[in-house]
């Protein structure tokens, strides 16, 4: 026994630990690791069909001319979605956090309100914004009409993705604001006093004190934002459906290729192919987040 343990025999502790791990392993880790194995097969949604080993066929299919356009579109949408929503969320949430960190009446209420969408969930959020962007009669249509314009909003291929990004930012700001606020409250007051004595303007204080001191929160937020948005698709699903080319995201493609949503699919389609999309997405998410993490850590170290 290498480590210390006061409760006598370790069987009780080991047994309950093993039971807990078993739940995670069977229903979480095995499926996640199994994606890789399954992506080399032609496993289908029907359990009685034989499963064959197909090697790299699914990956080759991903890049085959017949599917390349569809997949490249999904990759492009995913990257646009991820980069734009993360950037806007960080900038806006930093501004809101700095604002809510001032001694203002009602700031607790405002913070609670900004965080509320986190609790409401995609279905409710989706319906609220469908209501607002109702093309025939909604507040957004009214505003558009002031400028003599009209729009199909989520039905318009040119702006559907932008609108989904907008809703994503609206819904995701809260988490980011809360993380920034925690970071802001950890900055010692003295730094600002010293800066004031040195004659720093508000803008200089923000740029030279606040932002450098917030570096760890920024890293956390950027990473959460990128990883989250690269994998997030529930909002796009609820707002525009699983088969809208304008808002087709890689993770949504996994769903529609694996579970029928797409027109080419049926119950007999290969879920192995969808699993290969999962793996490709995983690699993209991994590479991008590690690169971003390395960059931000380096910046943190310089500051």
């Amino acid at each position, binding site marked *: 026994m290498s*480590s210390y343990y006061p409760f006598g025999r370790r069987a009780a502790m080991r047994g309950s*630990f093993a039971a807990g791990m078993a739940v995670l392993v069977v229903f979480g880790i095995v499926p*996640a690791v*199994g994606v890789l194995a399954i992506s080399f097969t032609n496993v289908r949604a029907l359990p009685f069909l034989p499963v064959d080993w197909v090697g790299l066929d699914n990956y080759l299919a991903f890049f085959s001319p017949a599917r390349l356009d569809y997949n490249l579109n999904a990759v492009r949408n995913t990257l646009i979605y991820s980069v734009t929503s993360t950037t806007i969320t960080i900038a806006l949430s930093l501004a*809101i956090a700095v604002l809510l960190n001032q001694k203002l009446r009602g700031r607790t209420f405002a913070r*609670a309100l900004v965080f509320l969408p986190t609790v409401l969930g995609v279905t409710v959020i989706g*319906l609220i914004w469908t209501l607002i962007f109702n093309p025939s009669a909604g507040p957004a249509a009214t505003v558009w009409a002031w400028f003599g314009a009209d729009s199909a909003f989520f039905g318009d291929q040119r702006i559907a993705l932008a609108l989904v990004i907008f809703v994503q930012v609206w819904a995701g700001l809260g988490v980011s604001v809360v993380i920034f606020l925690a970071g802001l409250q950890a900055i010692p007051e003295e730094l600002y006093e010293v800066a004031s004595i040195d004659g720093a303007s508000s803008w200089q204080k923000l740029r030279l004190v606040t932002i450098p001191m917030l570096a760890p929160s920024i890293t956390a937020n950027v990473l959460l934002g990128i990883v989250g948005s690269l994998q997030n698709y529930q909002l796009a699903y609820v707002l525009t459906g699983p088969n809208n080319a304008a808002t087709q995201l890689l993770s949504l493609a996994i769903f529609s290729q*694996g579970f029928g949503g797409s027109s080419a699919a049926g119950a007999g389609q290969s879920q192995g192919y969808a699993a290969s999309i999962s793996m490709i997405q995983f690699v993209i998410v991994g590479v991008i987040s590690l690169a971003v993490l390395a960059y931000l850590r380096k910046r943190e170290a310089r500051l």
Partner: protein
Amino acid sequence: MSATTTRRRKPIQRSTVVNYVLLAIVVLAYLFPLAFLLNTALKSNAAFSADPIGLVTSPQFGNFAEAWEKGNFGAYILNSVLYTGAASLIGLVVSLLIGFPVSRGYLKHTRLWNLLFVVMLFLPNALITQFQLMLRLGLYDTQIGYILIMSAGVGVGPLLISGFVKSIPIELDEAAALDGVGYWRYLVSFVIPLAKPALATVFILQAIGVWNDIILATIMLTDPAKSPVTLGLFAFQGTYTSQWGLLGAATMIVAAPLIVAYVFLQRYLINGVIGGAVKG
């Protein structure tokens, strides 16, 4: 801090005014969609088509009763309560059972287990394999299968618990053990009462995820009688596409309990988000 605190004597400053204007914009951006939802929920179809964005004149509270009945929301909410309660409770127990001994170093390879807790946060999208697992275990389209899948989504739970347990002095373990308290009784009568805030946070974080899930429910539960309320609302939207008053009322029915719960549980939730971000 800004000029507002350092120079309090001057009655009103320009920067203060600007701050309040900005604050008002933020509040409006979040209040308006909810207010518009409530406004729509109280309108009859005729009133909505006559003036979709005007303030409601004769509130139709009947919309709520009608939506409740037509959408079968009572049954869906019961399903959601069952899924959320059961899955989050299993997830919480799992997080405690694995987080506590790892935090204490009562197992070998503490570092390895900690690393595993972090790696679990970044695993690939497992929709396909989770579906295949359920299919082959005969748990497809069963409530227990869905609960088990959702319970494995513990997220930052084990990390939050193992972090919090460090604030409980290890001497307490020793003292209790000397008094003949066994491991499980120690967890139940000492750790659980002491770690209540962390446990509440872990439970709430997972509960939000389970309550709001729509994709896994779509895949795993084909029988509408087993639908959680998210699927129920989504189906309702598909059926009553242009009846905006009814649709608004249905959305309010689903959102209201969340908003009420949020008012009371906000503190735990925000602590969890901050803790999770620092750990993750």
